[in-house]
């Protein structure tokens, strides 16, 4: 019997442990994690592969984290079944743990499409340390790689590999890389930066088939693109996205849409069962509804909220939205919300370009509310915009100054400042 049981020891699970212990220092707490050292920073896998970080420096929390928080960490263990009536989690091997409060923070699994040759040695994903280690250990003998997917993870993978001297081709099915985050203009700038760093970017296509090597059919030797072109390579990295790991609640009463549906308190529809992170469909403050948002900071925030509520301290999840900060090849970009809407005609768009300095800024407004923005090159004041967007502040009065050099706390109306930007 453990008062609190958490399945998953990454961003969400860690946030929950910390929050629970703030409220309840003594209640028994068990964390089940498939990974042996779960407390590493997943976004730093890229730094690990590029050798800018080591296993030691990529630790999100120290080795003593579980002990210090009086948590029993069952690492290298897999939960295989939850009995919501008995309030019991079953682990592989038969161990059963009763819970009073349960958090499902199982995260996401990299999506790997069916692809002929996809099982060959040299095909990797990029969201788990074990896979990254496998990839890293091959780099010494490899010259070239094809990265499938031009989203956040794909571009991270491309950057890491280039930094290790690998010749990289990045393949994106849509017309532009990072198309879920950036608009066309910002994508083009990012593509140019990538190209200058040596990455070959191919858009509008994907990999059809993975080929073997001439002397070893089981090892990656190249790929065939949708247009039939052959690209020789020693490695393939699949970085198309993650899908929520909902298998534990399959065919149970837990409400699942694309992920486990949770309310503003991170509660599922089952009493005493919570969910957070990549497995959950939680609040989006821009959409004012639930959606999958597999982002590390949101997983951590959701975990904290779940933890507080599990321990009996009421806390509400403020929610997230599409929000990313990028630093690919030292190009700083912050993009939040709806930056590239389909019917852009119904939005007011503010734009500033300083091509000589590689600065591009764009703000999208609807009914005088900021619904999205991109700050590229000059990002220092992006956080002020983020709060205006998040708090649905009407910016009619200050529209003209939002992109000016002088924009800042000082240019906000007095009343607004006293409400949410207090400095005195």
């Amino acid at each position, binding site marked *: 019997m453990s008062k609190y049981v958490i399945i998953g020891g990454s961003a969400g699970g860690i*946030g929950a442990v910390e929050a629970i212990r703030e409220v309840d220092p003594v209640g028994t707490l068990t964390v089940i994690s498939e990974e042996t050292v779960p407390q590493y*920073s997943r*976004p*730093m896998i890229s*730094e690990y592969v590029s050798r*800018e*970080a080591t296993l030691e*420096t*990529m*630790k*999100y*929390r120290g080795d003593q984290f579980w002990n210090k928080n009086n948590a029993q960490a069952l690492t290298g263990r897999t939960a295989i079944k939850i009995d919501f009536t008995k309030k019991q989690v079953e682990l592989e091997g038969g161990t059963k743990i009763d819970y009073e409060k349960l958090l499902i923070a199982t995260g996401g699994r990299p999506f790997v499409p069916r692809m002929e040759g996809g099982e060959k040695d040299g095909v990797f994903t990029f969201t788990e340390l074990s896979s990254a280690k496998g990839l890293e250990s091959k780099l010494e003998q490899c010259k070239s790689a094809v990265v499938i997917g031009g989203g956040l993870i794909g571009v991270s993978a491309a950057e890491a590999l280039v930094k290790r001297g690998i010749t990289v081709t990045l393949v994106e099915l849509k017309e532009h890389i990072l198309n879920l985050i950036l608009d066309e203009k910002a994508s083009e700038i990012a593509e140019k930066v990538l190209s200058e760093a040596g990455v070959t970017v191919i858009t509008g296509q994907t990999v059809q088939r993975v080929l073997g090597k001439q002397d070893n059919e089981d090892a990656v030797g190249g790929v065939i693109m949708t247009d039939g072109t052959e690209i020789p390579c020693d490695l393939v990295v699949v970085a198309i996205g993650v899908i929520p790991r909902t298998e534990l609640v399959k065919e149970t009463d837990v409400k699942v849409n694309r992920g486990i549906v949770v309310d503003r308190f991170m509660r599922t529809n089952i009493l005493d069962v919570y969910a957070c992170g990549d497995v959950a469909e939680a609040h989006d403050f821009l959409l004012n509804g639930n959606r999958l948002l597999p982002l*590390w*900071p949101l997983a*951590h*925030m959701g975990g*904290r909220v779940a933890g507080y509520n599990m321990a009996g301290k009421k806390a509400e999840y403020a929610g997230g939205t599409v*929000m*990313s*900060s*990028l*630093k690919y090849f*030292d190009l*700083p970009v*912050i993009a*939040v919300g709806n930056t590239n809407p389909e019917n852009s005609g119904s939005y007011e768009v503010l734009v500033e370009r300083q091509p000589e300095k590689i600065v591009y800024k764009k703000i999208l407004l609807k009914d005088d509310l900021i619904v999205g923005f991109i700050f590229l090159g000059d*990002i*220092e*004041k*992006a*956080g*002020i915009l*983020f*709060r205006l967007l998040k708090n649905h502040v009407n910016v009619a009065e200050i529209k003209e100054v939002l992109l000016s050099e*002088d924009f*800042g*706390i*000082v*240019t906000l109306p007095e009343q607004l400042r006293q409400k*949410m*930007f*207090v*400095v*005195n």
Partner: protein
Amino acid sequence: MKRVSIKEEACIGCGLCQVYCTVEHSKSKDPIKAYRREQPRPVSRVRVETNKPHSISIRCQQCKDTPCVTACLSGAMTIDKETGLVVHDAEKCIGCWTCVMVCPYGAIKPDTSSKIIAKCDLCPNLEVPACVANCPNEALVCEEVEQ
């Protein structure tokens, strides 16, 4: 917990807080060397904003809800258990700029030369932070506030 606040009516927008902050966070602690020679260049963790006739000096406000700590990808931004302050570990920082994205004051500096962020640390080696001690019109105040 300590926090630096500003008496807006007293700020004359001189920018000295930025200069003293930069020098205090330089290796040499010498203004000429700090501004001319040091690499990577020391950066100010304070920003003076002007909207004539108003001006204010902006730095980390030690928010209660600490969005930067929650958002940090590497574990570099934490709350110091003893002082209650939001502290930044330069060794752990990877310069991902996630904290910059969520800082409501725009008070976290993305330092592209050192490739990590810089933020107000309330000058741990000084009794009074350099910007406060050297503000010519006493517009800056460092005081204890409730956590």
